């Protein structure tokens, strides 16, 4: 892998791509916290007519600039123009933000296609050269372009380090920011400037169509792993740079692997980068601790498991009030609202944990199980009493307490006890069992 950074042919594409992806993923966080994720899409597509018109302009004898430079200027100009038009549509024409975004996108894109088809039919060689910017062509990145990307990366990182506090407050609480003397408009303008710059330089490696993905995916992924802004920048940057490298790595390796035996199959870098970063995002959405889907799913399952355990213990406690001999497990399970097989498994679990004892075909609570069950009954009755206390009818309280007995924390229990002065009887005149320390 290390030869990607040393090989004279691979070095510029690799480092250039990594730098650009780093830039996009950092600027992406800025856009993410502004909740303007679609802006990247609109502004990058708006560069399309700029690219095509710039390519046309190079045909004029008076234009002496190289094609790449012309195209970069054209792309930047049109992105900026789109930004201004967006502003105008929102403020002066009273368009809603999402209508304005789609409107400007299609307007510029339509213009782009018109010029492109003109170019395609008359100067097809030039058109092919311009196409590099639409789909990106990392493999042909040269040293100057690499240095350009690195400079932009250094600039973006410095701006974020330098203005971190301003960025944080301006995007979180703009009015407060102004009251403490921050010029929020300057921060806004800086953000947009960085964005247009990343689009202009980024389209060469990732391509105009997919570029906006690099603004969005790493930021979403990073948000899953942290709820602090500075960490979000760090994670997003890492994810972005990693996607850049893995994208270029997989595109080269796959192209080589599939080109054996005469056929050649090429895997473009831009799409590989986007696929990598999107995979990381999907992985993050699923597996991030705390916020990820799997983690939330496990929490729900754990909670339901706890409820079932407590319900079974509670049922056994009620039976124990009638007989000391134990009870057939089927009788207990009849009281549970879950499938019998789940009840069976949970009962088995409680038996292995030592909270249920077995006497031939009958089961009963162990001393430690009894204490647990008693606490649940206690919370249930305390809650019923509290509900009556705040004016709920006696006959209505049981159902709600069935749920809340699993929820009430020791802290809330203490508050309840204090509020109702350590009661001994519940609303149905049943005793509230005293709290016993666990064995």
């Amino acid at each position, binding site marked *: 892998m290390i030869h990607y950074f040393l090989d004279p042919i691979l070095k510029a594409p690799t480092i250039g791509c990594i730098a650009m992806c780093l830039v996009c993923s950092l600027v992406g966080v800025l856009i993410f916290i502004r909740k303007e994720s679609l802006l990247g899409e609109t502004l990058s597509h708006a560069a399309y007519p700029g690219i095509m018109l710039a390519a046309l302009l190079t045909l004029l004898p008076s234009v002496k600039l190289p094609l790449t430079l012309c195209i970069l200027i054209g792309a930047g100009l049109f992105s900026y123009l789109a930004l201004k038009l967006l502003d105008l549509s929102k403020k002066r024409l009273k368009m809603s933000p999402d209508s304005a975004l789609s409107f400007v996108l299609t307007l510029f894109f339509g213009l782009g296609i018109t010029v492109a088809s003109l170019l395609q039919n008359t100067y097809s060689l030039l058109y092919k050269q311009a196409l590099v910017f639409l789909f990106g062509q990392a493999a042909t990145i040269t040293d100057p372009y690499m240095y350009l990307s690195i400079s932009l990366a250094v600039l973006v990182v410095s701006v974020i380090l330098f203005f971190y*506090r301003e960025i*944080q*407050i301006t995007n*979180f*609480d703009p*009015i407060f920011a*102004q*009251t*403490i003397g921050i010029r929020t408009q300057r921060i806004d303008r800086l953000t947009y400037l960085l964005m247009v710059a990343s689009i202009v330089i980024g389209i060469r490696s990732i391509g105009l169509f997919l570029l906006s993905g690099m603004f969005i995916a790493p930021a979403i992924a990073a948000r899953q792993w942290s*709820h602090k802004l500075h960490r979000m920048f760090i994670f997003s940057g890492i994810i972005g740079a990693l996607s850049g490298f893995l994208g270029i790595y997989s595109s080269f390796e796959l192209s080589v692997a599939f080109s054996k035996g005469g056929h050649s199959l090429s895997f473009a870098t831009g799409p590989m980068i986007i696929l990598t970063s999107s995979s990381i995002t999907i992985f993050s959405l699923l597996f991030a601790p705390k916020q990820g889907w799997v983690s939330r799913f496990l929490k729900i399952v754990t909670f339901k498991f706890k409820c079932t355990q407590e319900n079974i213990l509670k049922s056994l406690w009620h039976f124990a009030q009638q007989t000391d001999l134990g009870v057939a497990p089927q009788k207990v399970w009849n009281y549970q609202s879950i499938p019998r097989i789940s009840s069976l498994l949970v009962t088995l679990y409680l038996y292995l944990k030592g909270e249920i004892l077995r006497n031939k075909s009958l089961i009963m609570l162990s001393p430690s199980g009894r204490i647990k069950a008693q606490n649940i009954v206690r919370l249930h009755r305390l809650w019923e009493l509290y509900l009556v206390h705040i004016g709920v009818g006696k006959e209505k309280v049981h159902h709600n307490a069935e749920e809340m007995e699993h929820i009430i924390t020791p802290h809330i229990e203490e508050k309840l006890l204090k509020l109702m002065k350590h009661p001994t009887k519940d609303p149905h005149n049943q005793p509230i069992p005293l709290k016993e320390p666990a064995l």
Partner: protein
Amino acid sequence: MNLNLSDALKVDHLTVNYDQISVLWDISFTVPKGKLVAIIGPNGAGKSTFLKAILGLTPSLSGQVQILGSSKKSQIKKVAYLPQRESIDWNFPITVEELVLQGRYPKLGLFKRIRKRDREAALEALNWVDMTDYAHRQINQLSIGQQQRIFLARALLQDADLYFMDEPFAGVDSLTEQFIFTFLKGLKKKGKTLFVIHHDIQCIPKHFDWVMMINARLITCGEVSTHFTQENLDQTFGRNTNLFEEVFNLSHKKHLGVDHS
């Protein structure tokens, strides 16, 4: 100009326009230090604009604002602002501690690092609003009341002399409401002056010393005991102002080109 050092806020002929439309109209008043001032008025009467204009966030067409006896630019560190709930992005990646620390930013400036001392001050402010246990939580995990408390903590950390609060009671439960009032009165005891946009008119005599009534123009500004009268309330909210509002709204529409009469 008559300079009185015991005045917290002195406003002369303040007029604010949005696109040639007057939102606030020739407002003049003086509030002495150490008062808890309620700002009331109907929806859209320009209360929030009023606060923003005083803070210099909205350009005013004319008028002068003096905070603690001098022009506002130099006084910015003496003023704390509590935003309206709606202007906040509650899903923003920020923890309670980080949010409260923002109150320290004016002192720190751009480049000074956050030191241990600053963190301790932030924790102390959190302790004041009884939220120490939540320091490392993300703000969207809090209840509305808790969210309001941490914003109070941030304002406290700013150690300002004047506090401007845009509806700190919006959406909070009665327990938090009591808490906020105790908090505000605590600040007042320390000699701070507080301006609070408020909706619950009933409780004004109980909790506030001063009242300002605004409906595009200043109806009244003075002690609750003498100025919180039915007559003033009628002028602010009542029927006899209907025509004023109607013409006012019509002028808005004409200027925006959305008038179809």
